[in-house]
């Protein structure tokens, strides 16, 4: 096995394909990737959280009943939490020190961060479901001026939406089980 690998390595070493300009291009492209990878998703995520938060806060006096005000405050808190939990779990995964860590340390950090990421995603999923419930009356009041709690047919939308939500949640959690079990296996292997 080692002899075969050695022969292959000797052959590979003879084939020089990289050039000075390609090395420089790779380092520059890597730098540009880092900038775009960090900025784009975080900007989009922050935008989707900040716009409805600002809109609700600016118009909060229009939520003139205790239940609409409750829904408005809950929506703002949930939007903040969604943003915070996602960014925190992403920053833990990105926070591994590639140049200082050894292989074992990196694998440990990634496996732990991945499990935390899955927990955060689960919390986010439930929070999003609650957000769907509480933001609908708020936006209905602020955009159309309607108090949906006084219109009986609004509950129909919730009843119709639930059967779609259930299989989707089952699919999401099935996917997470696999990620967690892979991460757990790596942690066991490192013990």
């Amino acid at each position, binding site marked *: *096995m*080692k002899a*075969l*690998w*050695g*022969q*292959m*390595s000797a*052959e*590979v*070493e003879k*084939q*020089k*394909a*990289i050039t*000075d300009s*390609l*090395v*420089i*291009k*790779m*380092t520059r*492209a*890597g*730098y*540009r*990737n*880092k900038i*775009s*990878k960090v900025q*784009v*998703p975080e900007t989009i995520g922050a935008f989707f959280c900040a716009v409805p938060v600002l809109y609700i806060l600016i118009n909060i006096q229009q939520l003139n009943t205790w239940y609409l005000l409750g829904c408005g405050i809950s929506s703002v808190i949930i939007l903040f939490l969604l943003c915070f939990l996602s960014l925190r779990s992403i920053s833990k*995964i*990105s926070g*591994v020190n*590639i*140049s200082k*860590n*050894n*292989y*074992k*340390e*990196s*694998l440990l950090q*990634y496996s732990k*961060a*991945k499990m935390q990421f899955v927990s955060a995603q689960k919390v986010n999923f439930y929070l999003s479901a609650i957000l769907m419930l509480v933001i609908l009356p708020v936006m209905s009041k602020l955009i159309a001026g309607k108090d949906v709690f006084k219109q009986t047919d609004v509950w129909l939308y919730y009843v119709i939406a639930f059967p779609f939500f259930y299989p989707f949640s089952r699919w999401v959690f099935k996917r997470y089980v696999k990620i967690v079990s892979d991460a757990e*296996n*790596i942690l066991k*292997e*490192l013990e």
Partner: protein
Amino acid sequence: MQNKEAFIEVIKGNEGRIYKVTKVYANTREDAQDLYQEIVYQLWKSFDSFRNDAKISTWMYRIALNTSIAYLNKEKRKGNHLPIDDTLINKTVTHDTLKDEQVEALYAVIKKLDIVEKGIILLYLEGNTYDEIAAITGFSVTNVGTRLGRIKQKIISQIKK
């Protein structure tokens, strides 16, 4: 970067090592290109902090392996893909068809190993000593020996199948 020429020489002198790491960790041609580029970038980022008290190969393997696991753990997002010359990631293995097949079979078996085993066997096949493997991976020398014994058995049983 101050030592641009020195860095280019290091990469040119070790392109075979980077190629083999990408071959073991990446599953598709596109992934191999991305990973190759990412390894070069990470090496460049930490080149200034590299001290000559460590072997350059030890430093290089540490960063290449860490970059590979980071790459596998991150969500794939479209970034700048350089049209890298195919010869960088598709090197001719040997000039013997039978040996080429054997090498590809060996790569296929290594790819099936878990991520901990993959790193250790790659370092072993690359001719690193147990002490060097221990320094790169963070496992004790005894643990490296035990793990290597298990991995070799696993590979042999896979090849026999």
